[in-house]
C-alpha cells in the first residue's frame, strides 16, 4: 500500500528526458546515414531536400498519429484509421464529388472522417463495445464500402488544386508539412492547455474516478473517436493529393504505424499517459528509418525487422525507467528497504 502511494507521478521533466532519447535515436540514424552515404550528405542542397522529404512523407501518418494518441491516452484504440482514410479518400474522389471542386472534395473527406469516427464513438461509448472489437469491425466494413463505391478501381483525382497541395511549398516548406505542424500544435494545446485534454488523461487513467469527478465519460470517449476520425479525414486529403488518386486499399496498415509511433513516443497502451511531441518523434523515427534504408538500397524486410526491434526496445526502456524510478523512491520513503 505504501509502495502504491509512493509511485512517482510522471513529471514534465521525465517526458523531456524521453523525448531527448528519441532525438538521440534520430541523431544516431542521421549519423549512420552520413557514414554510409557520405557522398550524398556532402551536398547541402540534397541534405535540405532530404529533411523536407522525410517530413513530407511523415505528414499524413503524423496527422493520424495525433488522433490515435488522443484515443490511446483516453484508454481506447482505433484500428480503423487506415480504413477511414481509404473510405474518405475514395468518397472524395468519385466523379460526382470531384464535380464539386476542391472545396467539395475536402468537405466530403472531413465529413466522412467525422461520421465514421462518430459511429465508432457511439458504438464504443454507448453501445459498450470494446474499442478493439468495434474499430476492427469498422476496419473491415469501411474498406468494404470503399471497395463498393470505387468499384475496386483506382480513382484518379483530376482536381489541380487538390493535386497541387502535395507539390506546393510555403516559405520553402512543403504545405503538407505545414498541415502536420498545425495539427501537432493544435493537438498539443488541446491535450495540455484545455479541460478536454485533462479529461482525456483522467478518463484513460481511471474512468470510474473520472466519472465520480463529474466527467461525462461516455460523451468524452465518443468525442475522442470523432477526433481520430477527423484526423483521418485530413490525412485522406493529404494522401490523395500525394498519390493524385485514391483507392480502397490505400493507407494499408496505417493503424499499426500510428499505434507504434504513439507507443515509442511514450504513450501508455493502457491509457492515462502520453504526449503529442513524443508521438511526433515516433513518426519521424520511422520516416527516417525508411529514408535510411532507401538511400542504402537495403531490403524492406530488414527495415520491418528493425522497426519491430525499435518498438520493443522503446517499451522495454519505458518499463525499465519506470521500475528503477519506483525503486528509488521506495528506498527514500522507506529506509528499511535497502
Amino acid at each position, binding site marked *: 500500500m505504501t509502495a502504491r502511494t509512493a509511485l512517482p507521478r510522471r513529471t514534465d521533466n521525465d517526458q523531456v528526458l524521453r523525448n531527448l532519447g528519441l532525438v538521440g535515436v534520430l541523431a544516431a540514424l542521421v549519423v549512420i546515414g552520413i557514414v554510409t552515404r557520405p557522398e550524398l550528405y556532402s551536398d547541402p542542397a540534397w541534405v535540405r531536400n532530404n529533411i523536407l522529404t522525410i517530413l513530407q512523407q511523415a505528414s499524413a501518418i503524423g496527422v493520424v498519429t495525433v488522433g490515435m494518441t488522443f484515443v490511446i491516452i483516453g484508454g481506447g484504440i482505433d484500428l480503423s484509421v487506415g480504413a477511414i482514410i481509404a473510405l474518405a479518400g475514395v468518397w472524395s474522389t468519385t466523379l460526382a464529388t470531384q464535380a464539386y471542386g476542391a472545396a467539395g472534395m475536402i468537405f466530403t473527406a472531413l465529413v466522412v472522417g467525422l461520421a465514421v469516427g462518430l459511429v465508432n464513438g457511439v458504438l464504443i461509448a454507448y453501445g459498450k463495445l470494446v474499442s478493439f472489437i468495434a474499430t476492427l469491425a469498422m476496419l473491415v466494413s469501411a474498406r468494404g464500402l470503399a471497395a463498393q463505391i470505387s468499384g475496386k478501381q483506382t480513382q484518379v483525382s483530376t482536381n489541380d488544386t487538390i493535386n497541387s497541395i502535395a507539390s506546393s511549398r510555403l516559405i520553402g516548406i512543403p504545405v503538407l508539412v505545414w498541415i502536420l505542424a498545425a495539427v501537432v500544435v493544435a493537438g498539443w494545446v488541446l491535450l495540455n492547455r484545455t479541460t478536454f485534454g485533462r479529461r482525456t488523461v483522467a478518463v484513460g487513467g481511471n474512468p470510474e474516478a473520472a466519472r465520480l469527478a463529474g466527467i461525462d465519460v461516455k460523451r468524452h470517449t465518443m468525442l475522442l473517436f470523432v477526433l481520430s476520425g477527423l484526423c483521418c479525414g485530413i490525412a485522406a486529403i493529404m494522401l490523395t493529393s500525394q*498519390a493524385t488518386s485514391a483507392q480502397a486499399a490505400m493507407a494499408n496498415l496505417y493503424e499499426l504505424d500510428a499505434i507504434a509511433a504513439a507507443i515509442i513516443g511514450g504513450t501508455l497502451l493502457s491509457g492515462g499517459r502520453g504526449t503529442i511531441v513524443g508521438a511526433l518523434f515516433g513518426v519521424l523515427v520511422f520516416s527516417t528509418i525508411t529514408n535510411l534504408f*532507401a538511400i542504402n538500397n537495403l531490403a524492406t524486410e530488414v527495415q520491418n525487422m528493425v522497426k519491430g526491434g525499435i518498438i520493443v526496445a522503446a517499451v522495454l526502456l519505458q518499463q525499465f525507467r519506470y521500475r528503477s524510478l519506483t525503486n528509488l523512491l521506495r528506498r527514500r520513503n522507506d529506509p528499511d528497504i535497502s
Partner: protein
Amino acid sequence: MIRISRRHALLGGATIGAGVALTACTSNDPADTAQVKTDTSGNANAATGPKVVIGFSAPAADHGWIAAITNNAKAQAAQYSDVELRTVEAGADAAAQRAALATLIAQKPNVIVMLPHDGKELNATGLEAMRAGIPVVNLDRAFPSAAAYRLQIKGDNYGMGLAAGQYIGEQLKAKGVSNPIIGEIPGIDSLELTQERTAGLNAALAVYGFKVANRRPAEFTADSGQAAATALLQALPKMDALWNHDDDQGIGVLAAVKQANRGEFFMVGGAGSKTAIEAITKDDSVLKATVTYSPSMASSAISLARLIGQGKGMSDLVELQVPKEITLASETITKDNASKYAKLGF
C-alpha cells in the same frame, strides 16, 4: 420527456443535410472500358452455334486489374447470342471460392472459366469439375496438376520483366549511356509474380551489362507507389531509367516524380492501364513505355470457352480443338504504337 434544444435540432439537421449531400457523391459513372473482340466478319467460328453455359468465378480483389478481368468476361459473353454466363462470387479467399465453385459444378455448366485465388489451393476443385465432365479454363494462376484444366491462358510475368529490361537496355544503348543508374519499383515483394518480373528485368539488363542500382517495393496501390518512388528518388539524385512493375501504383509513382520536380530519366510501366497508355500518348511525363499484362485474357478465355463448349478449334490453327496452354506475350507499348493499344487499356 426528452427536450430537444435548438442547438441539437440544428446540429441534427446539419448532419442529415451533410449525409444527403454525401450519398449523392458516391456515384461513379462507369465508363465503357471493357475489352471485347467484336470483329467477326468472315469467321466461321463466329456463326451462332449450340448454346454454351459458361460458369465464371474470379476473386473480388480491390485492384483495377481484377476488376477488368470480371468486366471483360461479362462484356465478351454479352457479344455472343449463344453464350450464357453464370457468375459466382469468389468471396474473400480460396475456401470461399471452393464453396462457390462446388455450387457452380452442381449446376452443370458446359464450361467453367476461373481465376483462382491460388492455383494450388483450387487444384482439387479443378480436378473435380473435370471429372464431372466440365472442361475448366484456368485464367492466369496455374493449377499444378495438368488434369485439372482443359485450357490455361495466362500472362507472362518473366516476359514482362524481360520486355521492360530490353526496352531500357535499347534506349540507354542508343543514348550512349555507358554506366546507367537504373531504379526499380516492384509491387508486393513476397509474391512469386513480383520475383519473376524482377528476374526477367535483371536477365534482360545483364545482356547489356547493366544492373539495377536501387529497388524500393510498393504494394500495387498508388499511395504506396508514391512513397516508394519518393524514397527511390531521394536515394538516387540522378537516375537514367526506372521500371515500375504496375501501372496502378504508377499513378503514385508519377505523382512523386512531379512532386520531386525530377525528369532527367525515363520510366517504363507495367500492365498497360488506360491512364498509362494515355500518358504515353500525350508524352508529357517521364513515362515513355509500358509492358503489357493484359486483362484482355479474360475476354479471350470466354471466347475460347465457347469454342471448347461447341467442340470447335481456333480457325487459324490446323488442330480441330483449342490448344491446352496459351501464354500471352508481354508487348511493349510506346508512343509509336499507343493508338493501337488504346482500346486494350483497362
